[in-house]
């Protein structure tokens, strides 16, 4: 009411708008500290605070907080061990950092009035590109040029081989795109749906608004599950790509 009519009519896309908190310019580029940057910093601080404070006691019989941190650790460690084998545990800190950052960014984005950093493809694509570059470097480090054998599957007829190699190379280069679009589109779709139904609650008023409100409560719980699942899938696919780089079983 106080904001005036033009501020009332926010569409469902308004929540993804970037606003400059601290305008900055570096070498002609706009590097302002935006609300996206702010929520990324909050995610990092929240994740660090959660892990540091919950593990401060280091007791043999874990406290409630410590067992929460241990659940995260055990779960990811089991996934890395299952997918990459014991030699993949060397890269566990990398996978764990990515998981915990994406997880906290997703979950903090569900807070009313917050900003979902992972709903912007620039953020998720940067993360996916990091995974892609790291995995490619590890692959060439571990296997040398034997890593390129990944693009030449065994037992393929010679006639089909040129076609298969091209397809394999393209699918390898598509990895950062598919990884980033999955996370970004999931977050975008969920938040748009929540805002559209929030519009229904207001539109139907006190009489009919309860039905979409009940749906929204349920769907927020569902979104919480999606936020955790998408963070896990991001980490899981990172593990699978790491496995390709570590072992030459193609």
């Amino acid at each position: 009411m106080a904001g005036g009519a033009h501020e009332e009519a926010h569409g469902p896309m308004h929540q993804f708008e970037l606003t400059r908190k601290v305008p900055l310019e570096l070498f002609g580029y706009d590097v302002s500290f935006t609300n996206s940057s702010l929520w990324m910093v909050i995610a990092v601080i929240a994740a660090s605070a959660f892990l540091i404070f919950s593990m401060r006691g280091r007791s043999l019989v874990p406290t409630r907080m410590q067992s929460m941190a241990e659940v995260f650790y055990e779960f990811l460690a089991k996934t890395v061990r299952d997918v990459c084998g014991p030699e993949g545990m060397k890269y566990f800190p990398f996978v764990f950092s990515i998981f915990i950052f994406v997880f906290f960014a997703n979950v903090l984005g569900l807070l009313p009035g917050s900003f979902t950093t992972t709903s912007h493809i620039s953020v998720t694509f940067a993360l996916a590109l990091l995974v892609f570059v790291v995995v490619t470097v590890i692959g060439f480090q571990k296997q040398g040029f034997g890593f390129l054998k990944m693009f030449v599957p065994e037992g393929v007829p010679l006639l089909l081989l040129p076609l298969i190699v091209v397809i394999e190379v393209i699918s390898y280069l598509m990895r950062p795109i598919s990884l980033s679009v999955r996370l970004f589109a999931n977050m975008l779709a969920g938040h748009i749906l929540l805002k559209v139904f929030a519009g229904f609650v207001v539109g139907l008023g006190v009489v009919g608004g309860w039905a979409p409100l009940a749906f929204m409560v349920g769907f927020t719980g569902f979104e919480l599950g999606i936020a955790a699942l998408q963070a896990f899938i991001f980490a899981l696919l990172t593990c699978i790509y790491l496995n390709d780089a570590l072992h030459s079983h193609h």
Partner: protein
Amino acid sequence: MDPATAKLIGAGLACTGLIGAGIGVGTIFGNYLNGALRNPSAADSQRIWMFVGAAMTELLGLLAFVVAMIILQ
């Protein structure tokens, strides 16, 4: 036809790609449950591959959603 109308219809048509993703993800989870109930001892080792399959299938539906969003822009 008014271009704005055509844009909205196009976005709606682009979203039909999500039908396939819905069927696909349902098939994956349904078949996993089917297999897990028949052989519960093997279920744990295959759960990761269910999630990978679901992620791959879901991506194709989300591409349709992204196309719809690009049209609506």
